[in-house]
């Protein structure tokens, strides 16, 4: 009765083997590495780049422990952190600023393990050190900006259609237009309704103070807010890329928040600075007098004409621009990718505010046939996004850039133009910074307490339940291995509370084995045969184990749903641990018992501690 069919033993063996395999990478630890990835998607990662990296290292006399080329970049391992930092500087110097060169830790497991995705557990920021920010996007700010934009649109539209209005101003998130008579107001309403379908118009006021109040439709509000969030995330990503962080995380959290996690970053002041920085956009004219090849070649060589700046297009083409700035990004109220109305080719539509529109109209009138450049300035360095030829006077503040662009490029340019400023102001509402020494200390303390606790439980169980205690300990060890393997496979984020959950789960999982062992003892005391006692003990304990684990699981799931950050890490480990403990405590320990005793015909006694005491006479 205490025999498992072969397939059950096989399942146990396979589970334990997989558990050992996938928990093994954690033993090897991690090695310091330098990760090289291109800053822009246009730059390819190829063996030539690898050659440059190797050359840079050889030139600096730095010995690498091996380099790996994958589609996202190059990873080079080093023996110790000192070499790693030296190597980073050497590579950065050799490659220039088109690449992100970041410090990173790579698993030290054998290559075949990494190939089958057997990786160490993914450590949270509290264990590896780094910065975590939660940024709140000011959605009201986004709507206010939109209202500003509509106010200038309405002004433009009414002027073009020659509708006389008394004045336009923004009040909160609505736009108020004043009129002197009803007829003009009705006419204006018709004009605005046609030009701005996103607005709800209401007529208010009486007598000499007639008002038309425009507010955004709810669906337009929602769209603007979603757009603002997406745009802020994109901008943040671009900025984070410059920080040289190996595995940055920038993602949406809830309706109006963004999480930014920068593992390994210690200089939080710099990180905050870069995240909060605003890039600026400038419109400048090309220096037509020096647009010939010779002048440009000379400028690249260092002889820049007086009053000019040498700048590069994204493709690397050098251009000479006049120092004088025509317009700044502050005048751009929106930029959207789209298509040219007549030719149908991809284009970028830019909206300028009133002042910007006037300047732009004047400049384009005076410079037909010449080229103008849109320059994005970040970190004090300019880059020409696009340098189109002015085909005619452009009025109305609506600018279209087209020609030699793919749809993707149009999208990118629109994004870059918008990225100059964030769509809506953001504020840091949560920050967690953990220094690297504290992270390492947390790991050490966490695992130390887990192993000491495990040792104490093992000692007690073996003393108290003899051989059955040892079996329980083996089951508990299996639980630990399976749990670590599962966490490694899922690459779930392990936090310090997560390690505490591993410890606590082990402390609680032993309950199942205590239940089983106590039950077997009880059956033995009641005079059952050893074989029967084992059978009944496991059978009867199972229901209780199930019930009690499900109640614990309910608590774990609730924690997962409502917890945040480190507590969520606790919940994940807790829930997984309950699942693995049911398998190891019941199936694995039973398997061991069956293997030992299942085939024994004659079994008089079980090594489960003394169960005979009740037979002795009660002292009077």
């Amino acid at each position, binding site marked *: 009765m205490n025999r498992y069919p072969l397939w059950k033993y096989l399942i146990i063996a396979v589970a334990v083997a997989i558990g050992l395999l996938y928990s093994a990478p954690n033993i090897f630890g991690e090695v310091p590495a330098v990760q090289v990835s291109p800053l822009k998607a246009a730059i390819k990662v190829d063996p030539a780049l690898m050659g440059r990296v190797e050359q840079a290292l050889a030139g600096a006399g730095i010995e690498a422990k091996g380099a790996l080329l994958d589609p996202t970049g190059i990873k080079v391992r080093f023996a110790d952190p000192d070499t790693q930092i030296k190597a980073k500087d050497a590579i950065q110097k050799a490659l220039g600023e088109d690449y992100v060169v970041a410090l990173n830790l790579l698993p030290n497991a054998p290559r075949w393990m990494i190939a089958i995705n057997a990786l160490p557990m993914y450590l949270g920021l509290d264990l590896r050190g780094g910065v975590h920010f939660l940024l709140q996007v000011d959605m009201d700010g986004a709507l206010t900006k939109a209202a500003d934009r509509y106010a200038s649109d309405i002004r433009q539209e009414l002027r073009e259609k020659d509708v006389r209005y008394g004045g336009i101003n923004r009040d909160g998130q609505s736009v108020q237009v004043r009129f002197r008579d009803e007829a003009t107001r009705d006419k204006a309403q018709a004009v605005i309704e046609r030009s701005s379908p996103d607005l709800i118009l209401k007529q208010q006021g009486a007598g000499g103070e007639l008002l038309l109040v425009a507010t955004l439709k709810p669906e337009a509000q929602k769209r603007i807010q979603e757009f603002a969030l997406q745009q802020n995330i994109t901008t943040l990503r671009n900025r984070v890329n410059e920080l040289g962080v190996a595995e940055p995380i920038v993602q949406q959290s809830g309706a109006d928040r963004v999480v930014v996690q920068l593992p390994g970053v210690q200089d939080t002041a710099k990180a905050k600075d870069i995240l909060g920085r605003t890039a600026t956009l400038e419109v400048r004219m090309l220096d037509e007098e020096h647009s010939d090849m010779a002048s440009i070649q000379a400028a690249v060589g260092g002889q820049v004409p007086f009053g000019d700046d040498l700048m590069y297009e994204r493709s690397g083409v050098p251009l000479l621009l006049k120092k004088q700035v025509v317009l700044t990004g502050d005048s751009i109220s929106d930029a959207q990718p789209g298509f040219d109305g007549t030719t149908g080719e991809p284009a970028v539509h830019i909206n300028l505010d009133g002042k910007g529109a006037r300047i732009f109209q004047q400049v384009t009138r005076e410079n037909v046939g010449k080229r103008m450049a849109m320059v994005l300035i970040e970190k004090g360095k300019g880059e020409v996004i696009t340098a189109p030829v002015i085909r005619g006077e452009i009025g109305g503040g609506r600018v279209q850039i087209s020609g030699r662009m793919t749809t993707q490029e149009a999208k990118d340019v629109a994004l870059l133009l918008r990225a100059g400023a964030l769509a809506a102001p953001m504020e*840091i509402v949560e920050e967690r*910074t953990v220094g690297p020494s504290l992270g390492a200390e947390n790991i050490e303390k966490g695992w130390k*307490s887990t192993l000491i606790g495990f040792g104490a439980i093992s000692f007690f169980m073996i003393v108290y339940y003899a051989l059955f205690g040892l079996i329980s300990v083996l089951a508990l060890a299996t639980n630990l291995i399976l749990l670590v393997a599962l966490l490694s496979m899922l690459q779930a984020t392990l936090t310090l509370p997560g390690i505490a959950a591993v410890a606590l789960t082990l402390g609680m999982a032993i309950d199942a084995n*205590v239940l089983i062992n106590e039950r077997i003892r009880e059956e033995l005391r009641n005079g059952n045969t050893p074989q029967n006692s084992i059978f009944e003990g496991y059978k009867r304990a199972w229901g209780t184990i199930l019930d009690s684990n499900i*109640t614990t699981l309910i608590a774990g799931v*609730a924690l997962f749903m409502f917890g945040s950050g480190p507590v969520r890490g606790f919940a994940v480990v807790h829930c997984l641990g309950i699942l693995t403990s049911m398998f190891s405590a019941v199936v694995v320990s039973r398997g061991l018992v069956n293997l030992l005793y299942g085939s024994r015909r004659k079994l008089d006694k079980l090594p489960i501690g003394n169960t005979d005491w009740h037979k002795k006479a009660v002292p009077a």
Partner: protein
Amino acid sequence: MEFFRIRKDIPFMRHALVFNVISLITFLLAVFFLATRGLHFGVEFTGGTVMEVSYSHPADLDKVRSVLEANKLSDATVQNFGSSETALIRLPAKQDVTGAKLSEHVLELLKAQDASAELRRVDFVGSQVGKELVENGAIALLLVAVGIVLYLWLRFEWKFGLAAVIANLHDVVIILGFFAFFQWEFSLPVLAAVLAVLGYSVNESVVVFDRIRENFRKMRKASVPEVINNAITSTMSRTIITHFCTQLMVTSILIFGGETLHYFALALTIGILFGIYSSVLVASPLVMWFGVTREDLVKPEKKREEAVV
């Protein structure tokens, strides 16, 4: 080895009233302290900034305080954390300065005063985020309580579900009472511990309830108190051994787990100690007083799954 060599059932139910009165007094005391002293919420819940700064020598807390006061940060509290070399600085949330800037400013001040100052950790939480965490914590607690009642109702009967939840929520209140009395910091990991205790203590009640159900089937002629006495006595050994093992682990976290996990382990310790008491000696009498009968659990036409210790 066997610690519990009990030959006769211990008449727990005879003293049911005493156990419950003790429980009630502890509970009321906990509520009293919660009401008068309140919980000392961590920065996650209140909003504000916590900085852990380490020095190469024992930190001079008075000097740190004076430099903060000189810079109009007199509402900061400064204390040692873990070791004498480490100072923990708490700054309450302010409307005008964002915490992210505040921590940078403070670190600059400290570095100017003592170059060996090194930032180990910053936690800044805006007050809005803090409020949400309090709300979410309360919802989680409620959800766990409701989930457990429903499950036990399904598996046993409503009387059991209700009794288990009353007994174990009272553990939660007692843990909170301790935190209020000693003004220990109530942080997110402590909340996690409280919820884990809630799930864990219910285990305890479930084990006893399972045995009560089995006994109703086996001990046909026994009265309800006799059935419960036998159930508690025969599961007592397992109860104590299990809790002892869990406590071994928790003690290990308490001693070796470092300052961050200290209150987490402390909450678990209190929870485990009171969990034994309440889930066995409070939950079972409650079931009795709710008027449990044999017919509630043993339904002749429907064969139920057996589950026992």
